[in-house]
């Protein structure tokens, strides 16, 4: 666990005593109590605060790194818009901010979301989200939702309410970018990298245009043995970049694999004072850094990491200060979500929307398509001596990669 700055010795103690941060899934009642007035629809208040949305008990988390954050407060009704476009961001907001022709493209494409364990409510939650955001329902006329296990079968793995928000968020953010895409939920047996790899293989076998695992596992010596499971061109594998700059002195998987599009997080809010109409900067808690074991792909510029892979490649909104709106039974209905899995799921949707059938690797296309990306030039996610590996600058940088979608041209 990376400590941002230790100015006191006790910080060492705290860190020494840390193995993996216990992660708490907010119960609706607890969250409602904690967010207080913010949830009562006060027009001038900030969006509900988010908390880690993973199992509370480390043994239930397994090897996973919890990246998703969620907040509650809406109940049966979508959360009201708060101060001047600060969210929670709806599908329409995202499509506008990233100039996505979501009404027109994506037909015939499919996006796969990979999560551990079963979420029996995933389909109903997706339906609620689509309805509230004006998307066509997934029904017999438009069978746009399917759920399978990592072997392709219908028998779901064991349910896990603690993980359920991941599938809710993944499906809904992919739909936000690409309402016309079919959505495939591949539920892995557990949070291990091996199960994730099998689920990604299954998603590719099912013909997904893009696939996004919603969690990560810390890099380890020998990780290259599983690298091929995340290289399925023309299926594009995208993944959340992680949480924090150089967290723990290493990156997470699968995002560190060179074949994977690593998606960082930004802070996004409506700003009429800008030409774009939106203000976007690198999120302070997004991830970036050098892979410990993965080589640098040819299309990525050499920088601080030398011959090693640099995370991230691209970015989208993920800030807990500007969260997105989601619907999940685990959140008691409407709530908010943040974290780089939000961004990754959205980018997976953008890949579905673009529907590019190119033999050129997705990464290579991305790095050559700067005109179709919003270059993020503000914000930092850590201390790196002022370098671009942790500081958003013109051109490529670690926290936001090449930037955020400006249409679908880069995807």
């Amino acid at each position, binding site marked *: *666990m*990376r*400590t*941002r*700055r*230790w*100015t*006191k*010795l*006790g*910080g*060492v*103690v*705290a*860190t*020494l*005593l*840390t*193995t993996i941060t216990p992660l708490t899934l907010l119960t609706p009642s607890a969250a409602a109590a904690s967010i207080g007035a913010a949830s009562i629809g006060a027009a001038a208040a900030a969006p509900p605060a988010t908390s880690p949305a993973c199992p509370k008990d480390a043994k239930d988390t397994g090897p996973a790194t919890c990246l998703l954050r969620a907040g509650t407060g809406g109940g049966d009704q979508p959360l009201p818009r708060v101060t001047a476009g600060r969210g929670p961001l709806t599908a329409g907001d995202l499509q506008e901010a990233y100039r996505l022709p979501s009404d027109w493209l994506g037909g015939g494409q499919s996006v796969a979301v990979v999560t551990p364990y079963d979420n029996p409510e995933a389909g109903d939650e997706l339906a609620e989200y689509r309805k509230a955001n004006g998307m066509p329902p997934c029904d017999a006329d438009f069978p746009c939702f399917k759920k399978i296990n990592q072997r392709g079968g219908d028998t779901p793995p064991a349910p896990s309410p603690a993980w359920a928000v991941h599938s809710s968020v993944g499906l809904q953010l992919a739909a936000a970018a690409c309402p016309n895409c079919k959505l495939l939920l591949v539920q892995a047996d557990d949070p291990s990298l091996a199960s994730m790899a099998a689920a990604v293989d299954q998603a590719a076998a099912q013909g997904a245009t893009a696939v996004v695992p919603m969690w990560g596992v810390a890099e380890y*010596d020998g990780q290259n043995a599983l690298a091929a499971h995340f290289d399925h061109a023309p299926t594009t594998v995208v993944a959340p970049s992680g949480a924090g700059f*150089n967290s*723990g*002195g*290493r*990156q997470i998987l699968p995002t560190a694999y060179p074949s994977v599009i690593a998606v960082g997080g930004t802070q996004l809010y409506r700003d009429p004072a800008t030409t774009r109409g939106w203000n976007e900067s690198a999120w302070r808690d997004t991830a970036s*850094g*050098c*892979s*410990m074991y993965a080589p640098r792909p040819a299309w990525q510029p050499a*920088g*601080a*990491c*030398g011959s*090693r892979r640099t995370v991230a490649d691209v970015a989208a909104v993920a800030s807990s200060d500007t969260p997105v709106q989601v619907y999940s039974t685990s959140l008691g209905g409407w709530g908010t979500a943040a974290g780089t899995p939000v961004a990754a799921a959205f980018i997976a949707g953008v890949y579905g929307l673009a529907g590019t059938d190119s033999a050129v690797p997705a990464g290579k296309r991305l790095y050559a398509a700067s005109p179709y990306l919003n270059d993020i030039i503000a914000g930092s996610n*850590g*201390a*790196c*001596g*002022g*370098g*671009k*590996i942790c500081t958003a600058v013109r051109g490529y940088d670690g926290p936001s990669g090449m930037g955020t979608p400006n249409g679908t041209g880069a995807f």
Partner: protein
Amino acid sequence: MTIHHRLGSPRLPRLATAGLVLALALAAGAAPAAAAPPLDPTPHAAGPATRAPETGTSTVTLLTGDRFQVDIDERGGQQVSRLPGGGPAGGTFSQFTIGGDTYVVPSEVVPYLGKTIDLRLFNVGYLVRAKLDDERSATLPVTVRAGRAQAEALPATSVTAATGNAATATVTKKEAPALGRLLAETWRGAKGDAVGTLPGIERIELAAPKGAPEPPPSPLAADAPAAKASGGELSYYMLTVDSIARDGTPGTMIGAVQNVSDGALATFAFTYPGEGKKSFMVPEGTYSIMASVLTAPATDLTSETALVIEPEVRVGADTSVVLDARKAVRYRPTLASPPQAPLIRSESLSFVRTSAAGDETGVSPSGLIAGFTWRTYSDPVTGSPDLYVTPTRPVRKGDFTFTGFTLLAENADSGPEMGATYKLVFAYGDAVPGRLTPVVRKSELAAVRSTLYNTASDAASPGPVSRASFVFLPWGWSDVSHGFLPAAGERVDYVYSTRPDETYWQHVMAADTNEVILGERRKLRPGQEIREVWNLGPRTPSAAATYVQETLLGVGGPGSRVDKPWLQVCLACRQGSLGTVYLNGFADSAPLHSTSEAYATSRTTFYRDGKLAFDLGTGGYTPYLPMPLSLPLAPRPADYRLVWDFASRANSQSPSRTEWTFRSGPRDAAAALPRTVQCAESTRPCSFLPLLFVHWNLSLGLDSRARAGQPFEVAFRVSRQEHQARPTGVRATVEVSYDDGRTWSAPKTATPRRDGTFSAPITHPEYSEPVRWVSLRVKAGAGDGSTVTQTNIRAYRLAS
């Protein structure tokens, strides 16, 4: 361990206790005291004043080729005179002295400072200390932030190594005038933003040679660590750390990796209960790698451990480091003349690595829990009786301190059977020495003989809670433990420090009521013997000047930094029309003792020329963080009355009332304060408010009882606040009450005694249930007209 909270700063706002607990748990803690201290009377090892000066005459050639003669006297004073020849400045220089060092800046360099050229290259005092004078070096070592080709293109510059956009190089002094001319010519030809820049060169910095002292920081902020200042990109490499345990098997590590330029760049941990080989991606730089290497995870109490420290490991490529615990030496101090009684031993090691940016990693002297976590704490309970640590060399970047604490107690380490204790502090300082088995001679010990009293009570006393000590070193403080549940009565404790001239001790007693009584902070010399009396008699306001920096303990380490333990603030002083009075928690028979007491009741009122001027209601005293009373004084001489009623929560049956009267004016003489004492507003002088203090000096039994039906001397001391001259012309009377203050005896004149105290004889009545408590009142006045009336209800009890 005693935990008490006192003043953080005279003007710091009160901290919420809950927040404090959280802060301690997360090790945030209170900030260092904000008050500007007076001149430090105890020089520390930071400034040139403490360095052994390189006396003599040297010649220094600067980066520009300009040559100077530098004369350094015995006190480190530096005289600089220009020598002929050299650079193009034509005799135009700027010269100034900062931090004891003289800088000479040729005019052609001025536009480059703060941008392209490191000002430290012109610190002639440091260049001599670093052996970079002409007598000992023909070149100047520099780091050129540029590509290798650009660096080599500079006149007089030879690149010895290059990585990325930084080149390690030397400037040949003989050829340096060419570099000076380049600077001058480039300046002349530059316009706008180009002024002060060299094409293709980002920066030229001083590179301290190996073995040279760390250069003092540049006075210019722009000369801060290069990577930050330049915005340059640091390269990242894999740092792999493995370990070998003392038994030769693969080790398990608990510890940290810290970038010694700035821990914010990279600080990582080996987490409890221990980890094996581990890799991190870290930016290029120098790292301190510190870990306790265990033979098994720390949850196995039989595992053997050794602290292994590699304080400076350079990472400029993928790097592997093996922490070899087999190189560790045993820490085992002993007494040359141990007592006959068996000694119970408890030991701990403290090490703190401080980066150049100031962040710290390690186990602070008071980091008890951190010590358990790192396994640098050893006593019979931990199952790890022996401590081992690897020797180190002094660090070149940042700071490092190492301290060993050995606590020995005769017979038992707590309880009534505990005999004398020995608190031995080995303040090794900037390195871990090769031998850690010192032998302490009896003549090196200071003896603290103390008498511990129980509080007067109807019930049988459970006895004192503790008699502990704080020790303050230049780099941290610790609560040197032992002394829990000692027996009331006489005892002796010994203390020792390898640095007696830099070590302050403060002894502490937690009474049977859990009131924590604090003593003075003072140095104790080898062979010195002092006597202390604790918890004798009822409480009266302390006369001690308040310590600015409080000792604040927490589970994760020190909640407060105490680097000026001697620094005090005037107890009751006047500045302009403001009187600042610290209602310093209560003393026992020792006027300079104080306590941290929660109160059952407290009320403070202040009168000016007979009229109520200020009423603090019940909030006049805040335990733990006493804020000064800000008393509104008249801009002319006036008469004042200050009244403080107080009853502590721990002993609410024995309230105290103190009523002061005094006269003060804006033209009162300035207080002659030692350099270690500041006025509340430290930048202006202040005058004393002439308060008188009464402290009882009663001949009571260990349970604070006196014999009924017998003559008794009511003895007491009348004094001024600490650092103020003793009062003259003092007269005093004593009144006694046996019905808790409802009725009082006629005032009886007290007579002065040879030892400066006063005494009035009384005769106790026979014991009876209604007449078992004695209340006392003293009315005292000094020759200047100031008075004090001190009343203590249930001051002591009569024995049945």
